[in-house]
């Protein structure tokens, strides 16, 4: 029981870290055609992600892998139910990944234009669709007792799902704009700061609507009312969102970005805490929900994987932190030749 709950929390944590790290990559990629006015701007924007995006994306692989290892039934039902949405995300991620590498390889404006579009599409599509997917998970998905999904891609595009999609996009846009505020200088920097300032109030409004809508569209608050201590997560989310703006006003961009990272983590845990012990709730019948208890791996596998994760995840965080530190500071024009 304890082991399963620990794994449930780790599962939520890995998704949260993925959204926190690759989230700013998605944000920068979505802002790319709007903020990148000149060729130099564009290359600076790409290079601000260059050394990091690949390592960030592995958090997705790990979140997926851990779902497979610790909750195989969830992995099986979740990804076959969300088939079309997940495939769209994967194709988008493919486009994004190759664009970063291929764009600079042929010196022609037409060639670059193609990959510019791919960077935008490859960033905005996962940003929104991850939100839509998680909104539907928070709300419950029409799966029966056999784990068969009764719906289509369009079933997922309900009001609450789309609202969560918009929320994720805004979270990532803010996160990305703040990242650019840290990493760039000059005009691009000013545009990034002003974007962060303009996205913030919209994000605030959508976040409030989301928290209210959750009361009517989901049963997330049942857990909160049963364990009022959980309201601290919402408090943390609100405080992190507010401090993002405060630090932004003080031009403390790193602190603002860090607050925005915490906002994303808290927003993820807001939903995760609400669906516990389910990882993939059924909207047809709560008895069909896949939970940490009825969908987990054997105790032996959970123990082995816990040892693996407790050893390697801190090591990963250590060397990724080293890498972030190595590439800290502004990306300038002279960094563009490597």
């Amino acid at each position, binding site marked *: 029981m304890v082991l399963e709950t620990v794994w449930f929390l780790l599962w939520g944590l890995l998704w949260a870290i993925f959204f926190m790290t690759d989230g700013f990559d998605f944000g920068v990629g979505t802002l790319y055609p709007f903020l990148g006015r000149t060729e130099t701007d564009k290359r600076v924007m790409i*290079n601000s992600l*260059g*050394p990091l995006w*690949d*390592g960030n*994306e*592995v958090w*997705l*692989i*790990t979140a*997926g*892998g*851990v*779902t*497979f*290892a*610790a*909750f*195989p*039934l969830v*992995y*099986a*039902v979740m*990804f*076959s139910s969300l*088939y*079309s949405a*997940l*495939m769209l995300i*994967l*194709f988008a*991620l*493919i486009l994004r*990944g*190759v664009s*970063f*590498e*291929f764009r600079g*390889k*042929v010196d022609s404006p037409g060639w670059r234009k193609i990959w510019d579009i791919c960077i935008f599409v490859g960033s905005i599509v996962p940003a929104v669709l991850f939100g839509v997917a998680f909104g539907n998970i928070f709300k419950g998905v029409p799966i029966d007792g056999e*784990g*068969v*999904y009764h719906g289509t891609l369009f079933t997922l595009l309900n009001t609450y799902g789309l609202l969560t999609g918009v929320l994720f996009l805004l979270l990532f846009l803010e996160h990305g704009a703040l990242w650019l505020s840290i990493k760039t200088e000059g005009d691009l920097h000013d545009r990034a700061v002003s974007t962060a300032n303009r996205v913030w109030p919209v994000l605030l409004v959508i976040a409030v609507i989301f928290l209210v809508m959750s009361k009517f569209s989901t049963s997330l608050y049942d857990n909160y009312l049963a364990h009022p201590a959980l309201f601290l997560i919402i408090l943390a989310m609100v405080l992190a969102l507010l401090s993002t703006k405060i630090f932004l006003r003080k031009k403390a961009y790193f602190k603002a970005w860090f607050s925005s990272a915490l906002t994303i983590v808290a927003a993820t845990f807001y939903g995760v805490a609400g669906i516990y012990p389910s990882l993939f709730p059924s909207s047809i019948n709560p008895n069909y929900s896949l939970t940490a208890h009825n969908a987990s*791996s*054997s105790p*032996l*596998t959970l123990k*082995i*994987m816990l040892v*693996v*994760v407790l050893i*390697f*995840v801190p090591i*990963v965080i250590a*060397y*990724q932190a080293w*890498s972030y530190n*190595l*590439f800290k500071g502004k990306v300038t024009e002279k960094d563009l030749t*490597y």
Partner: protein
Amino acid sequence: MDVVMLSRLQFAAATMFHFLFVPLTLGLSIIVAIMETKYVRTGDETYLSMTKFWGKLFLINFTLGIVTGITLEFQFGTNWSRYSAFMGDIFGSLLAIEATAAFFLESTMIGVWVFGWKKLSKKAHATVMWLVAGASSMSAIWIITANAWMQHPVGYTIRGGRAELTDFAAVVFQKFAVLQFLHTVGSAYILSAFFVMGVSAYHLLKKQHIDLFTRSFKIALVFGLIFSLFVVIEGDMHGVHVTETQPAKLAAMESHWETTRRAPIHLFAIPDEENEKNLIEIGSIPGILSFLGYHDFNAEVKGLRDFPKDERPPVLITSFAFKGMVGLGIYFVIMTIIGVFKRNRLVKSPFYLKIMLISIPLPYLAIELGWVLAEVGRQPWIVYGLMKTKDAVSPIATCQVATTLVSFVLVYGLLGAVGFYLMAKNAKNGPAMD
């Protein structure tokens, strides 16, 4: 076509495309690391140019390998959910370990290597490439162990309608996994060696950058020779173990229908699966199949007729894949041995260089055939003896899979074309002279 067939085609397309890039990542990372280490040790700028030239090709290839690998991890869930639910306890943990213990290191360090030229000392920078190389081989260990478990499941028990892990060490250290890993990385190193030799041959034929490409050729030649010999010997051991664990695959490899002693191989044969015989058999050598399977020319080899019809793999594909793979494996040994004699007069051996240039695709073909043999030869099982492929598929709509299959073919086709164009362009351009 039904969901099973479409999903099989989609998985085949996605894995085979992914595996066009993986082997070069595995081998070229080591070759680039050797070049950079030589640069650090000697300070010779030619080694730096070599590192940068081959590093550029490495990166184009690496990117395609990474992006196509991501879809694979999720396809077990999207298309093979029954399989995932049944095997996840074991199979899922191996994939998760791969991501945490290896793939993270590889992906993080490649970023550091590309962007870290000015931020790190020369020695540290070369070390980073060794980390990339080490991590990619580590990653292969876990993926191959997962596949080996599908080939020969061990260390589990069936409980509550699924396979549960009972002995982790048995899964990780089983003979099948070790042999299959060595076979796969060995072939990947051959492929990388032939890639480097082939591209070097192009420039040597044009008599440009002779010093740089002679050195590259020689490093790759050593690598290629060692591993072509290694893979032949290791492949033989692997074959004996496959015979022990998957007798139907051995019979299908040589379209061997009747149980006999002194079982032959045929240099060429067309099997007729309907009538359980071979339509054509050319160049039969008695005793060789017995020897390959049991290291004994007189051993009895069970024929396909003695396996139930619904437990036989597709014979035509399996046998052609086997013959092609083995034939190419021997070709690689011959070409690298010739290379040893020509190594000091490469520029004066245009014919050999031309052969090596057009040989670049051959190890790719051999590796794909090897996977076809491993996977198609395992049919009708998804996990040998435990679960059939037709029972493993997700309960999803045919049109969904048809749509994604078409998208895979289109997107991968375009990526393949762009990737090939960029590789060829950069390979032809040669090293940047600054």
